[in-house]
């Protein structure tokens, strides 16, 4: 089975090298592994570093946001012939051991879409982030009728058929909720698997703060009003 890990990255030269090494070192018996880094219009050395570490780099000429980059990465993974597609943040907040845990339900056929949930055991999460994530889950449930323990997670796994049917139209962080909505719309069998979150000053500085969170909410509502092309 071919496993393709998709890492959307925008100006992540400090973290991307280590993230790729971690993913490469993840022990996944029975899988042939490939890594796609979507260099989302970075102005730093993200692309060069990713290439030197052995990832396939797909380059966005313009910065399109994490949603646009995920859409490109998943499409690229499918074209590479992936049987399982994993999405992973580039800021180093995920533990490589968790990739095996989120892939397992797909390998065994128990699920088609897996969310690595930081919220099942959120004791390490700063309280403000915990509140924000609960609010995000509530919003996702209200707007998209999708119930999940961690709507904003970056670590997810999809079977090939699930990945090829999910339609990503949004460009920025609202993509997290959009994916949850797609899982719901397509009635995909899904599970949430607890994962660790490695909070460093760096990874905290990279996520959504309050201001971006409000923007995401606004854009999510707007995205419901825009006709899909």
């Amino acid at each position: 089975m071919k496993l393709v890990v998709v890492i959307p990255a925008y100006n992540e030269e400090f973290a991307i090298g280590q993230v790729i090494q971690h993913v490469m070192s993840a022990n996944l018996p029975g899988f042939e592994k490939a890594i796609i880094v979507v260099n989302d219009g970075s102005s730093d050395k993200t692309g060069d570093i990713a290439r030197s570490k052995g990832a396939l780099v797909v380059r966005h000429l313009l910065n399109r946001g994490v949603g646009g980059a995920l859409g490109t990465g998943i499409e690229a993974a499918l074209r590479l012939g992936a049987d399982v597609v994993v999405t992973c943040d580039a800021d180093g907040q995920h533990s490589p051991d968790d990739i095996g845990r989120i892939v397992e339900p797909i390998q065994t056929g128990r699920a088609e879409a897996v969310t690595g949930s930081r919220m099942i055991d959120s004791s390490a999460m700063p309280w403000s982030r915990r509140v924000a994530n609960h609010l995000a889950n509530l919003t996702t449930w209200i707007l998209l009728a999708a119930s999940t323990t961690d709507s904003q997670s970056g670590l997810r796994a999809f079977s090939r058929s699930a990945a090829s049917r999910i339609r990503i139209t949004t460009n920025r962080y609202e993509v997290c909720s959009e994916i949850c909505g797609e899982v719901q719309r397509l009635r995909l069998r899904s599970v949430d698997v607890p994962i660790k979150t490695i909070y460093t000053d760096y990874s905290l500085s990279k996520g959504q703060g309050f201001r971006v969170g409000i923007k995401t909410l606004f854009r999510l509502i707007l995205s419901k009003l825009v006709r899909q092309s």
Partner: protein
Amino acid sequence: MISAAQLFLLSLAVLAMGVAVLWFRQRKIGAMALLLWLFLWAGFAVVVLFPEMAVVLAHLLGISRGVDLALYLSVMLIFFLLFRIYVRLEQVDRQITQIVRAVALREAGLEHRERPRDEKVQPGDKV
């Protein structure tokens, strides 16, 4: 008699209508937009010429002054136009992503699929 202020506002309306017609001829705007625009400025001109009409209309709607009615309507119109621009912008944003994506995949040598996409239609899938 027509006052100076009325003359000024009227010429403004005529100018705006002229510009709209010009844009329509240059195919910058569609027929619907032209009609809407002409209708709006015609209404504006009528109210400038016969301010009493605005008062009558305002009273019908329970608003005491004609000026207030005009103000409410213009604010509503501006909100509507803003919203339309926002939605249009979002669409353009998504189209840009599609182009950037196509270029990125081509550059990475992935324009062709090694395996066909699963296009099975499942229950709950909008076709």
